[in-house]
C-alpha cells in the first residue's frame, strides 16, 4: 500500500470557484493532514465548492475518515459544497457505513462532479435572478 512520503505534495487544481483535491492512493494520517490543509487553504482563498477526487484511492484508514469529517465541518462552516468523486470499493462502503455520505454529495467521477456543481451554480444563479 503506497503510503505517501512526507514531502509529497497533494495534487489540487482550481477552476473558478471550484477546487479539485486528489486524495491519492491511501488516505491516512500523513496524506489526510495534507488533503485537509489544502481543502482549508482553498476555502480560505474563496472557493465555494470542493471536489475531493478518490479515483486513485484504494484505502482509507480510521484517521483518514476522521480527517475527512473535519473537511466536511470546514466546508459546512464556510457554506461551501463538498462533492466526493470516484469513491468506490472499500472506501465507498466505509463512507456509507459511518454516515459521511449524509453530509456530502457523491459523484461517479470528477467530470460529473464538476457538471453537478455547474448545475448547482446555474440553478442558484437562476433562482437568484428569479427572485
Amino acid at each position, binding site marked *: 500500500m503506497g503510503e505517501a512520503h512526507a514531502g509529497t505534495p497533494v495534487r489540487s487544481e482550481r477552476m473558478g470557484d471550484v477546487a479539485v483535491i486528489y486524495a491519492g492512493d491511501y488516505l491516512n494520517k500523513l496524506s489526510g493532514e495534507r488533503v485537509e490543509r489544502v481543502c482549508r487553504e482553498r476555502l480560505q482563498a474563496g472557493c465555494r465548492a470542493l471536489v475531493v477526487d478518490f479515483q486513485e484511492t484504494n484505502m482509507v*484508514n*480510521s484517521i*483518514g*475518515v*476522521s*480527517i475527512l469529517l*473535519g473537511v466536511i465541518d470546514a466546508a459546512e462552516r464556510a457554506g461551501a459544497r463538498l462533492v466526493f468523486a470516484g469513491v468506490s470499493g472499500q472506501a465507498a462502503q*466505509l463512507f456509507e457505513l*459511518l*454516515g459521511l455520505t449524509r453530509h456530502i454529495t457523491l459523484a461517479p467521477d470528477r467530470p460529473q462532479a464538476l457538471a453537478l456543481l455547474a448545475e448547482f451554480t446555474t440553478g442558484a444563479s437562476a433562482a437568484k435572478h428569479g427572485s
Partner: protein
Amino acid sequence: MPEQINKLIHAFSALADLGAEIAESRNFDEMVRATLHVALGALGLRRGAVAEYEQAAAALRFVALWGMGEAELAAVSFDGGRAELLGAGGGHVLACGESGAQSALQQRLGAELTAALTAWRVSLVVPLVVHGELVGLLALGGKATEEEFTVEECEVVRTMARHIGVGIHNHRLLRELEARAAENQQLYDILRSIYRDTVRAFAAAIDCKDKYTQGHSERVGKYSEIIARELGWSDDQIEGVAVGGYLHDVGKLVVERDIINAPYRIDAKQSSELNRHPAAGYEILAPIRHPDADIPLMAKYHHERIDGRGYPEGLTGDEIPLAAKVVALADSFDAMTTDRTYRRRKEFPEVVADLRQNTGKQFAPEVVIAFCRALLKELDGDTKERRISRMLGKGYLDSAQVRPLLIELIAELEAATHATARSV
C-alpha cells in the same frame, strides 16, 4: 447484519491503527492527537477531545480537540478526590446529554468540566484509567450517522479508551524516566566537577612540596590533555590522561622535602629515595575508584622508557601503557622548559634536539609526533587557544624559528615510523 460485521471489521482495523500510533509516535501531543483521530474515525464521529490528568496541578489538560469550532486547548481544574473516584470506578462510559445524565455527570466531573463538555455537544465521556488511577479523559460526540451510540459502539469506545490510557501512561513514564536521567546526568556532572577540583587541589598540594616546580603537575596534566586530543582519543580518555598528568607525582608526598628541594645534584641514595615516588604514587592512587582505571598506572610508569632503561620496572615498548607514555613526555617536556634548582630551562631548539635524540629510546614516536603537531597547529592559528604557548610564557617560542624545526622533526619521525613498520 453484514453492516454490523463491516462496522466491527472497521473498528478492529482502527484498533490496529491505534496500537501503531501509540507505539510509533515519539511526541506526546502528536500521539494523543493521532489516537483521538483513530477513535473518531473508527465510529464516524465529528467531535472529540482527549485530556491528560495532571495530579500535581490537580487539573485536566486538554491535549487534543477536534471538531469543537473555535475552542482552544485549555486546562480545567480537577481535584484529587474526583480523580480517585473516577480511577476506582474504572473506565466506564459516561453518557452526556441524556435527560437525567447531566446531574450525575456534574457530580462525577464537577460543574466546570460538565459545562465545557455540554458546550462542545459531547455524547460520551470515558475516564482513562490505568492500574486504578485516572490518567485522562476521552470525550466523543457528533455521530455522522446522527444515530444514538449502540451498546457495541460503547464497548469499542471503552476498549479504545483503555489503549489510549495506556499510551498516555507509557509516555508519562518515559517523560519521568527522561527527567530522572537528566537529573542523574546533572548529579554526575557535579560529581565529576568535584572530582576534577579535588584532583587540581591535590596537584597544587604536590607542587607545594617543591618550590621550584610550582604548577608542574597542572602543566603536565594540560600537556597530556593536548597530546591525547591530538591522538584523537575520546573525551573520557582525554580527561583520564589529564588527571593522570595532574597526579603523576602524587608519590612525592612521601619523599623527604629536603631531597625534592635539594639545591644541588642529589647523591645515589637520595636518588633512590626519590625514585620511589612512581611506585608510591601507584600505592596512593590504586585504592581509589577513578573514572579511568589506568590513572594509577600513569603515575607508576611515567618514568619508564621504551628502551627499558626507565624505572620502577624497566618496562619496554608496548609493555608501557600509552597513557603513561603521554604523561612521560608531558613531564619531561615541562622539566626541560622550566627552570630547576640546579639549571636554567632549555631554549626551544635544544628541546627539539633532545626530543630528536630520545625519541625511540625514552619517548614513544607517535606521542612526540602528536605533541609536535599540536604545537604546530597552535603556531599556525588552527586552534582556539594558544595553550602551549601560554604555559611556556611570552617570548619563549619564536614562530619563525620553531615552525621549521617542528616540521622537520615530524617528517623525520614519520619516515622512521614508516620504515620500522615496513621492516616489521
